[in-house]
C-alpha cells in the first residue's frame, strides 16, 4: 500500500531540513565544525591550563607556608628565634642551616643546596612533603628533593658525592625523596636541593647551629614594603643583640610562588593567541555561513513563497549554527581538556609541582560552552540576516550563485583591463581562469584573506619573537666577552691567580674582577633591592655593556658608575649625572651615574640589577683590599665542550694550589640555561602559531570547496570543451596557491606592527624590559613555504572533486 511507504514523524519538516542540511553536505559540516572546534580547542586548552596551573600551584604553595623573608646572621640560637617569634609583626620564625656544595657527577659539575633542619617533624615555614623513604634522614644521609633526582641522575638508595670546603669528598646517602615546592627548579638553576639533620651537617664539618632564620609576617603577607619594614626592625634587633647581620632575602612577589609571574605571563600571552585563534575561527564561520546562505538562497525564496516568515527561516539557520556549535563542542572539549592537561603537565614538570586537577575545571567548561555556542551564533548573525533580506524574487530568479549582484560599470575598469592585458595575453588560459576566479567573490576572498593573513602575521610574529629572544640573548652574551667565570671560595691576589690561570692549557686571557653587592640608600632612608656590583679592571675589554644613555666607563673613572636599565626600572628617580648613595653593609658611599646600560640576561632570567664600575674606583672609594674571588677567563676554543674542559682543568689545578673553586660557569652553560627557558615559551608560541595555520588552512579549504561547488556548472562547461582532469585540478589549486601567496605578502607586512607589539609584551612579561627586536626574515620564508603547502593541501580535495565531476552530473546540478 502506497500510504504505508511514508511514515509520520513528529519532527516538523522545517526541523527535518536542519538535520538534512547538516547531514547532506558532510564536507561543509565537517569544515564548519572544525573551524569552530579549533577556536574552542585553543581557548579550552589555554584557559584550562591556565586555571589548572594557577589552581594547583596555589593549592600546593599555600600549605607550604613560604617565608616572608629569610635573614642570614650569626649565632642564631633558639632563644633569639623565640624573641623574633614574639614580635607582634611576626607570625612565626624558624631557624635552619643552609650551604651549597660542589658536586661531581661523572664529568659534570653541579651544585647541591643542603639544608640542615633541626626537627623534621616540625617544619612550619617552607614545609616539605614526603614522597618516599624516611621522614627523617639518618646520620650521613639526606632527603633529596624529587626535582633533583633527574638533575643528578640518581634514585633513592643511591649516594651523592659532595666536595667539602677543604676539598675532601663525602658520600651522602639518599634516604628518601621529598617535594619542596619552593626549591629552585633544577631545570633552570643547576642546583639540587637536599635536607639533612644537624648531626649530618656536623659530620660535614659545620657547626650544629642555624646560620639563617625564616619568618612569616603576621599581616600583609603580600606587602613587600611591609615585609621590608619588618626585616629592618629584625635587622636592628640582630645588630643590637651583638650579632652580625649578613643579609636578607624577600621574594620579588611575596606570598606568591616564584613561578607564578612567569606562569601567568606565559598563559596570558597564550590566551591572547588563543583569542586570535577564536577570532579567526569566527571569521571562518562567517565565511562558511555566508556561502551556506548563498547556496540556500533559492531554498530561502521557496520557503518564503510557501509562507515562511523571516524569523522562522532565521531560526532554522541559527539552529543549524547552534547545532554546528554543539558538535564542535563535542569534538573540542575533550581535545581541549587533553591540551590543557598536557600543557599544564609540561609546565608543572619543569617547575617541579604536581597537577592535582583531573579533567578541566567547571569554569573552563562554561567558557568553552559560551565560546562554542555564542561565537558561531554571533558570527552567523550577519550572513543569516543578509540572506533573509533577499526578496523572494531575487532568491528565486537569480540565475546563478556565482553571479555578482550588480555589475556596475566602473570608469577604472577599462584602464585596468588594458594595464593587465599584457599579463593576460602572456599566461595560459587555465591560469587566467584561476586568476579571474580568485577575484570573483570579493567578500569571500576578503574573509579568507583576512583569516590567512592574520594567521600569516601571527606566525611570522611568533617567529620574530623567537628570533628577537635569540638576538637579545646574543646581545647579552656579547656583553660577556669571555668564556668562563670562576668563583673561588676565598679571595686571592689577582696577579697570582691570573698567572696560574694563564699556565693552564687552553686559557689565553684572564682577569680578576670584583663582584659585590649593595643597596641604594634613598633620600627617605629606605633601601633598594640588592644591586650586583661588577668591577673589572679599568679599560677591560672582557665586559662590554650596551649603552642606552650617557657614556661607558673610562679607565680613569673613580666614582663614576654605569647602571643597568633594571636599576632604573626599580629606581625611576635616578638619572644620568645624578649622585647615588650606595650601602655596602653598614658603610655608605656616593657614586655618580655616568651611563645606563641595557639589561643583560642572568641565569635567573629577569634579575639583572647591575652596577658597573672600575675595579680601581671600587677599591679607592671603598678602601677595599686587593684580593678578589671572581676570575674571568678567555679560552682558545669557544665551543661548549672546550669551555667545560678548561673549566674542569682550572678547578683541578686550583684545587692542587689550595685555591678552592666555589663554582665555575661557562658562557655556553649560561646561554643554554637562558635558551632553555626561552625555548619553553617559543615552543608554546609556535604551537599556537601552528594552530593558527590550521585555522587558516581550514578557511582556505572551506573557500575552495565552496568555490568548486558553486562553479560546478562552469567546470562542466570546461569539461565539455575538453579540459583534462589535470587542467581542472590545476585551475583550482592555482587559485588556492594564489590566495595563499597574497595572504603571505599582506601577512608579512601586517606582521611588522604585530610582532613589535608581541615582542614588547613578551619582553615586559619575561625580562621586564624590551627584547632586542629583529624582524624574522626566516619566519617570512618559512611561512611562505608553509602557506603554499597548506594552500595546496587545502585545494587538493576540492580540486579532486572538481576533476571527478562528469558533464552529465554538472548539467543536472541545481
Amino acid at each position, binding site marked *: 500500500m502506497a*500510504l504505508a511507504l511514508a511514515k509520520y514523524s513528529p519532527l516538523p519538516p522545517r526541523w527535518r531540513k536542519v538535520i538534512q542540511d547538516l547531514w547532506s553536505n558532510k564536507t561543509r559540516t565537517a569544515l564548519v565544525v572544525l573551524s569552530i572546534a579549533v577556536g574552542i580547542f585553543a581557548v579550552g586548552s589555554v584557559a584550562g591550563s591556565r586555571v589548572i596551573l594557577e589552581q594547583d600551584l596555589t593549592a600546593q604553595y599555600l600549605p607550604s607556608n613560604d617565608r616572608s623573608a629569610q635573614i642570614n646572621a650569626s649565632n642564631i640560637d633558639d632563644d633569639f628565634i623565640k624573641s623574633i617569634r614574639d614580635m607582634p609583626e611576626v607570625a612565626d620564625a624558624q631557624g635552619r642551616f643552609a650551604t651549597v656544595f660542589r658536586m661531581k657527577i661523572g664529568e659534570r659539575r653541579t651544585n647541591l643546596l643542603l639544608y640542615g633542619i633541626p626537627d623534621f617533624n616540625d617544619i612550619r615555614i617552607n614545609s616539605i612533603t614526603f614522597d618516599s623513604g624516611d621522614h627523617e634522614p639518618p646520620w650521613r644521609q639526606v632527603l633529596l628533593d624529587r626535582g633533583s633526582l633527574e638533575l643528578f641522575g640518581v634514585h633513592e638508595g643511591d649516594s651523592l658525592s659532595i666536595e667539602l670546603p677543604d676539598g675532601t669528598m663525602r658520600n651522602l646517602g639518599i634516604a628518601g625523596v621529598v617535594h619542596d615546592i619552593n626549591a629552585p627548579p633544577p631545570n633552570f638553576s643547576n642546583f639540587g636541593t637536599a635536607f639533612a639533620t644537624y648531626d649530618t651537617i656536623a659530620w660535614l664539618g659545620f657547626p650544629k647551629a642555624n646560620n639563617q632564620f625564616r619568618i612569616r609576617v603576621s599581616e600583609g603577607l603580600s606587602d613587600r614594603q611591609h615585609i621590608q619594614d619588618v626585616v629592618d626592625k629584625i635587622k636592628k634587633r640582630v645588630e643590637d643583640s651583638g650579632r652580625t647581620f649578613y643579609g636578607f632575602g624577600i621574594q620579588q612577589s611575596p606570598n606568591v610562588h616564584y613561578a607564578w609571574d612567569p606562569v601567568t605571563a606565559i598563559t596570558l600571552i597564550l590566551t591572547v593567541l588563543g583569542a586570535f585563534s577564536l577570532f579567526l575561527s569566527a571569521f571562518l564561520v562567517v565565511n562558511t555561513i555566508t556561502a551556506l546562505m548563498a547556496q540556500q538562497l533559492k531554498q530561502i525564496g521557496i*520557503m518564503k513563497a*510557501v509562507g515562511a516568515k523571516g524569523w522562522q527561516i532565521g531560526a532554522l539557520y541559527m539552529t543549524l549554527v547552534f547545532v554546528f556549535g554543539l558538535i564542535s563542542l563535542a569534538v573540542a572539549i575533550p581535545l581541549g581538556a587533553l591540551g590543557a592537561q598536557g600543557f599544564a603537565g609540561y609546565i608543572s614538570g619543569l617547575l617541579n609541582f604536581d597537577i592535582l586537577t583531573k579533567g578541566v575545571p567547571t569554569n573552563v567548561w562554561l567558557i568553552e560552552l559560551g565560546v562554542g555556542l555564542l561565537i558561531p551564533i554571533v558570527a552567523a548573525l550577519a550572513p543569516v540576516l543578509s540572506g533573509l533580506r533577499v526578496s*523572494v524574487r531575487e532568491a528565486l530568479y537569480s540565475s546563478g550563485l556565482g553571479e555578482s549582484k550588480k555589475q556596475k560599470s566602473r570608469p577604472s575598469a577599462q584602464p585596468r583591463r588594458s594595464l593587465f592585458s599584457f599579463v593576460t595575453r602572456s599566461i595560459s588560459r587555465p591560469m587566467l581562469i584561476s586568476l579571474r576566479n580568485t577575484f570573483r567573490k570579493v567578500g569571500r576572498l576578503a574573509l579568507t584573506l583576512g583569516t590567512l593573513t592574520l594567521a600569516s602575521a601571527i606566525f611570522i610574529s611568533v617567529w620574530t619573537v623567537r628570533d628577537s629572544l635569540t638576538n637579545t640573548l646574543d646581545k647579552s652574551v656579547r656583553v660577556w666577552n669571555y668564556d668562563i667565570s670562576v668563583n673561588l671560595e676565598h679571595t686571592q691576589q689577582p696577579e697570582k691567580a691570573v698567572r696560574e690561570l694563564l699556565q693552564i692549557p687552553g686559557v689565553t686571557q684572564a682577569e680578576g674582577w670584583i663582584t659585590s653587592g649593595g643597596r641604594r640608600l634613598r633620600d627617605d632612608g629606605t633601601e633598594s633591592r640588592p644591586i650586583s656590583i661588577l668591577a673589572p679592571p679599568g679599560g677591560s675589554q672582557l665586559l662590554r655593556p650596551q649603552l642606552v644613555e650617557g657614556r661607558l666607563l673610562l679607565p680613569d673613572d673613580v666614582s663614576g658608575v654605569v647602571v643597568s636599565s633594571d636599576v632604573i626600572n626599580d629606581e625611576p628617580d635616578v638619572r644620568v649625572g645624578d649622585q647615588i648613595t650606595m650601602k655596602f653593609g653598614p658603610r655608605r658611599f656616593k657614586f655618580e651615574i655616568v651611563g645606563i646600560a641595557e639589561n643583560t640576561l642572568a641565569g635567573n632570567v629577569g634579575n639583572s640589577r647591575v652596577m658597573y664600575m672600575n675595579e680601581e674606583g671600587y677599591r679607592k672609594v671603598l678602601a677595599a683590599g686587593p684580593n678578589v674571588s671572581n676570575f674571568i677567563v678567555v679560552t682558545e676554543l669557544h665551543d661548549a665542550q672546550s669551555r667545560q674542559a678548561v673549566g674542569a682543568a682550572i678547578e683541578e689545578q686550583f684545587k692542587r694550589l689550595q685555591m678552592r673553586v666555589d663554582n665555575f660557569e661557562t658562557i655556553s652553560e649560561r646561554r643554554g640555561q637562558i635558551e632553555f627557558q626561552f625555548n619553553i615559551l617559543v615552543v608554546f608560541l609556535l604551537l599556537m602559531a601552528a594552530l593558527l595555520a590550521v585555522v587558516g588552512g581550514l578557511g582556505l579549504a572551506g573557500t575552495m570547496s565552496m568555490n568548486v561547488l558553486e562553479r560546478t556548472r562552469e567546470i562542466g562547461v570546461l569539461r565539455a570543451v575538453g579540459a583534462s582532469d589535470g587542467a581542472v585540478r590545476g585551475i583550482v589549486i592555482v587559485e588556492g596557491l594564489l590566495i595563499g601567496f597574497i595572504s603571505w605578502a599582506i601577512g608579512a607586512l601586517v606582521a611588522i606592527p604585530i610582532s613589535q607589539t608581541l615582542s614588547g609584551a613578551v619582553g615586559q612579561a619575561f625580562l621586564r624590559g624590551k627584547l632586542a627586536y629583529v624582524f624574522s626574515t626566516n619566519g617570512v620564508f618559512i611561512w611562505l613555504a608553509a602557506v603554499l603547502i597548506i594552500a595546496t593541501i587545502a585545494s587538493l580535495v576540492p580540486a579532486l572533486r572538481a576533476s571527478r565531476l562528469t558533464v552529465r552530473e554538472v548539467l543536472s546540478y541545481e
Partner: protein
Amino acid sequence: MAGTIACLPCRQPYISMLAKLRRGKSPAANPAINLSFDGSKGSNGHPKSGATDAASQTDATRYKHGNTDLIECRTLVKEYETDAGRFLALKGVNLSVSTHEFVAVIGKSGSGKTTLINMLTGIDRPSRGEVLVGDTAVHRLSEGQMAVWRGRNMGVIFQFFQLLPTLTVIENVMLPMDFCNMYAPRERFDRGMQLLELVGIAENASKLPSQTSGGQQQRAAIARALANDPPIICADEPTGNLDSKTADSVFELFSDLVARGKTILMVTHDKDLAKRVTRAVTVADGEIVDEIRN
C-alpha cells in the same frame, strides 16, 4: 493584521475523501471530493484565512479596498534598473479575476507575464499601481506580512517546481502547514498524504525530489500549493518543463481544482492550453493586448 481573503467553505470531512480514495476512485475525476477539510479554522484552532468568505461573496460585493473582483490589478507598472538602463516590464496593466475563474496569462518570453503573476503573489512589488486580492492590498504588505498572507491565501507553483532538495516529497508538502502553523502536527501528515493521493503520487511520498520525475515533482509542487487550502493558485509555466502527456494531466488537475472552487491564474506560452481555460489574457511588451473568454 494584514488583509486576508476567505478560504473555501467546508463541505465534507477529509476522512470521506480518503475512504473514496481507498476504494480506488480517482480523486481528480470525482467532483464530490473537497479540498477544504476544516472549514474556516484549522483543527488546531488557528484561523486558516481571512474573515471574509470570498467564495460566498458575489462579484457585486465590494471588498475592503473597493475592489469588486477577487483579484484586481490597477494600472500596474514595473520598472527595472539594468546595466542597459531602465526597463519597463509592465506598463500600466489592469486585470480583474473573479472567484472560480481559471485564467491563463499567455505571451512570449520577456513579455512580462511572469512579472505580472509575481505582482499578484507578492513575490515582486509594483513600481506603481495597486494589487488588491480580496480584502488585502498586497502591494502595501511588508515582507513579513506578505509571507504570512501568501502562505495562507495563495498557492504558488513554479516552472522549475522549486521543491526543497533535502526534504522528502511529503515533507515538502507539509512545509507550508508547518510554517503557517496550520492544522495539528499529526493532521499535517494525513493532509499531506491526501493531497499527494489527490495529485496521484502518494507512492512517492517518502522519496527525495531528485528521486522522482519532472512530472512527479510538479505534482508534488501542486500538492504543496494546496497544503494550506488557499483559495487562489498562481502557477508560473507549470507545464513548461513537462512532456505533453504529463502537461495534459497537470492541466486536468488544475481544471478539477477550479471545479472545486479554486481560482487559478496560470502563466503559459502554450496557446493550446490557453484555449481550455475560462479566460486567456495575452501579454506583450508589458501590456495586456488581448483577452479571450472561452
